[in-house]
């Protein structure tokens, strides 16, 4: 089949005036054929976005060439034709929306082509209905949810009916329901014969593609089917990637049982491979080995409510009578779909928002007291926002970390304090203190942002989506660090869209749904309530899902199996031999 995209010996480098040439892409060659579904993966900073931007002529190669349907992106006369054929959805949808209303934004690309009005109207209508945005067509984009904004970005691209669609991490900001909707959309597009290139950090998503391209330090190091790539663990580690969860779980189970029973690169494939259990053994009753520890609570929230933009036409209720307590010294997970109130609740914990009704005590501070200064609360309760590196304002690592300690005039030697926290997050003080922040990798920047909170030595550490946007290796390191960070006198509260993160590090979990607490308990208790979680738009962790399927086939796996080590133990104890 004739390729729709041909990349030949592509090299691309940046050069700031007076500085050395910085190569980003090195000798890249590949082809994509019509109707193909290709995933592009690689660690943070490996050059994925830069490569994608070459495919519709947003960037031009330093050497080599890119052809789209035989048209060279270097030829300025065909550039608009190329861009009409290759639609691109950028990473953060809010940054690519141009117009001040939903329907105008969808019309934008077609207006540029000079399409007749009646045709634009028709296509806008079709695209908005397909993306379920028709009712919101007159709404200003900033009043849309993240999921809606993502759909709007896609609608704007689809309305132009491109043949090839480039998607740069389209699911990274979305919750489970949003991700599922995006995948349904991708499948529909593939059915229509569109060619899709998907950039992702999620190996399970990559495993669903027909072909995977792997970039490592600007070089194309793999181009082939996912099965082959994901069978070699060592190679993946070298590229700072990991094998998909389904493969990890299958391999662990096979290893524990000493025979190759399970296989599959996607969870559904793994499910199909599960044989009926032939051995002896009954399913143990659900005895929770993990209990909510009977320690004094560090957070006590009683009927806390919050409404944004009160008394305006855009009033929205974010929290509706939230009641919970979190034991001191534990790691507590907060989960919920987008818009369920997680971030609002987290911002109540360090006093950025005060309860509009209800009472809240955190670290023995009464947050209802209007005279309690914010700085006192922040000193005891450190909060790191989502993508915290966007808030850096110093040039050097050391200064950025020292800021809070200076600002709050914390006692002790400042240098010593900074050194201690840098060592805690695994950064060598002498090597990193004078490094410009701009030269750090994604994972290192995330560590600096955590250190800049930890420097206050808070009793309670609150982390909003700490692993969002990190590559698999950086994510693993961060989760390891979160576990190390916990102390008898330090409580960690984290929110995440990734249930595996929560299952891996948390002791207890609270589930929010439309501003209310609908479930609370240990990780095991919460993740065994599949129906309630699905109702709240959430999924259970992959291991919990697999253990449900195993039980359906008669395997004696207890319902409280939510982590890989638990699954391994139960298989060994109840099913091996």
């Amino acid at each position, binding site marked *: 089949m004739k390729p729709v995209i041909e990349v030949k010996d592509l090299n691309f480098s940046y050069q700031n005036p007076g500085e050395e040439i910085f190569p980003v892409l090195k000798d890249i060659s590949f082809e994509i054929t019509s109707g193909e579904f290709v995933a592009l993966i690689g660690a943070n900073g490996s050059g994925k976005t830069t490569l994608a931007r070459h495919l519709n002529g947003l960037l031009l190669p330093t050497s080599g060439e890119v052809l789209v349907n035989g048209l060279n992106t270097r030829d300025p006369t065909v550039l608009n034709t190329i*861009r009409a054929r290759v639609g691109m959805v950028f990473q953060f949808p809010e940054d690519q929306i141009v117009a*001040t209303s939903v329907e105008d934004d969808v019309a934008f690309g077609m207006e540029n082509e000079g399409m007749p009005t009646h045709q634009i109207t028709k296509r806008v209508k079709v695209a908005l209905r397909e993306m379920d945005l028709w009712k919101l067509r007159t709404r200003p984009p900033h009043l849309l949810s993240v999921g809606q904004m993502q759909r709007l970005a896609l609608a704007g691209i689809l309305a*132009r009916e491109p043949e090839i669609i480039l998607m740069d991490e389209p699911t990274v900001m979305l919750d489970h329901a949003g991700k599922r909707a995006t995948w349904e959309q991708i499948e529909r597009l593939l059915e229509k014969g569109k060619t899709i290139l998907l950039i992702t950090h999620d190996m399970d998503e990559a495993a669903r593609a027909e072909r995977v391209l792997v970039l490592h330090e600007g070089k194309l190091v793999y181009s082939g089917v996912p099965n082959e790539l994901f069978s070699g663990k060592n190679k993946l580690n070298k590229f700072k990637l990991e094998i998909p969860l389904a493969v990890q779980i299958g391999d662990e189970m096979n290893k524990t049982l000493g025979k190759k029973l399970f296989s599959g690169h996607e969870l559904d494939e793994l499910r199909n491979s599960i044989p009926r259990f032939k051995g002896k053994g009954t399913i143990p009753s659900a005895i929770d080995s993990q209990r909510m520890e009977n320690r004094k609570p560090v957070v006590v929230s009683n009927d806390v409510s919050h409404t*944004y933009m009160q008394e305006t036409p855009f009033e929205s209720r974010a929290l509706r009578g939230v009641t919970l307590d979190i034991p001191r010294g534990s790691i507590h997970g907060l989960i919920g779909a987008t818009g369920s109130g997680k971030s609002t609740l987290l911002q109540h914990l360090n006093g950025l928002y005060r309860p509009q009704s209800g009472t809240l005590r955190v670290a023995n501070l009464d947050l209802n007291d209007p005279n309690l200064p914010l*700085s006192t609360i*922040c*000193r005891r309760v450190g909060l790191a926002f989502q993508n915290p590196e966007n808030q850096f304002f110093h040039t050097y690592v050391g200064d950025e970390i020292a800021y*809070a300690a200076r*600002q709050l005039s914390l006692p002790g030697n400042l240098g010593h304090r900074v050194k201690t926290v840098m060592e805690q997050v695994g950064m060598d003080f002498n090597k990193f203190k004078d490094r410009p922040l701009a030269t750090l990798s994604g994972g290192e920047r995330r560590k600096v942002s955590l250190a800049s909170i930890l420097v206050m030595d808070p009793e309670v550490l609150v982390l909003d989506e700490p692993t969002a946007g990190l590559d698999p290796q950086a994510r693993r390191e961060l989760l390891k660090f979160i576990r190390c960070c916990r102390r008898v006198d330090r409580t960690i509260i984290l929110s995440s869209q990734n249930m595996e993160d929560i299952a891996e590090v948390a002791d207890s979990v609270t589930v929010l749904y439309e501003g209310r607490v609908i479930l609370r308990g240990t990780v095991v208790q919460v993740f065994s309530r599949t129906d309630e979680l699905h109702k709240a738009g959430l999924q259970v962790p992959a291991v919990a899902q697999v253990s449900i399927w195993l039980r359906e086939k008669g395997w004696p796996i207890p319902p409280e199996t939510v982590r890989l080590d638990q699954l391994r133990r139960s298989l060994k104890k109840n099913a091996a031999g």
Partner: protein
Amino acid sequence: MNETWDYLSQVTIGQYSPIDSAFHRLDVRVRMLTIFFLLVGLLAARLPIGLLVPLLIILILIFAACMPFRYALRGLIPPLPFILILAGLQILFNNYGDTGTVYFRATWFTFSLVDIWAGLALVVRFCALVLLLGVASFCLSTTDLVKGLGALMRPLECLHLPVRDFILIIQVTLRFIPLLALTAERIAKAQASRGADWGGKKGGLIARGRRVAPILVPLFVQALRKAEIMALAMDSRGYRSTAKIPGLPYKKIQPGEILAIGVSVGAMVIGLLY
């Protein structure tokens, strides 16, 4: 300190209210033209009749827009001290000559009946302007504004003026206002969480500058980054500065709407004549 953090609600240009009033239902071009003609009438009027007719129509507009009357009047409170000071200056230092009854005369100013009329006219004119802008922002969303401007300026395309670029500049600017407000809010909250002092008023200019640096630096960096990505997104969606806009279609102007324009044109003519 008890910061509210709702930056978005503080930056809406006026307070647009998406209700279904008689005035909201009019075509956006009609709404904009009505407001424009009344504005010209108010600015041009010299005699009481020239001021009072547009004022009366503005009051009818407030009613037709279902804008709570007390809410409309509340908009007058912040600028009132300035209006009164200006009226005082007008009374003391105008150059209408001393044609009427002179109540008081000093070496460098006089205080006459004409001066009082001039001061009063200024108060009425400014109050009417504030009310008109209030009702305009109550009935025109940013989207309306962009659409209306696009439609009204379309005839200028015949003169080969870059109308589309102009509209796009306004559109992107309006799009960036909430975007930057939200970004500033996120940064301010993050810095406050790290001990940045938002409530403090102590210190001189340098100390204050030092306090805003933590928000300004990342805000600039992010604004530039967002601008760059938006430019790339526009490029990838085929934006060309030379392209003419067909745009989404507009409804035909209805007879009732012509009446609204007619009334406002009448008010403008009275303002221009008197």
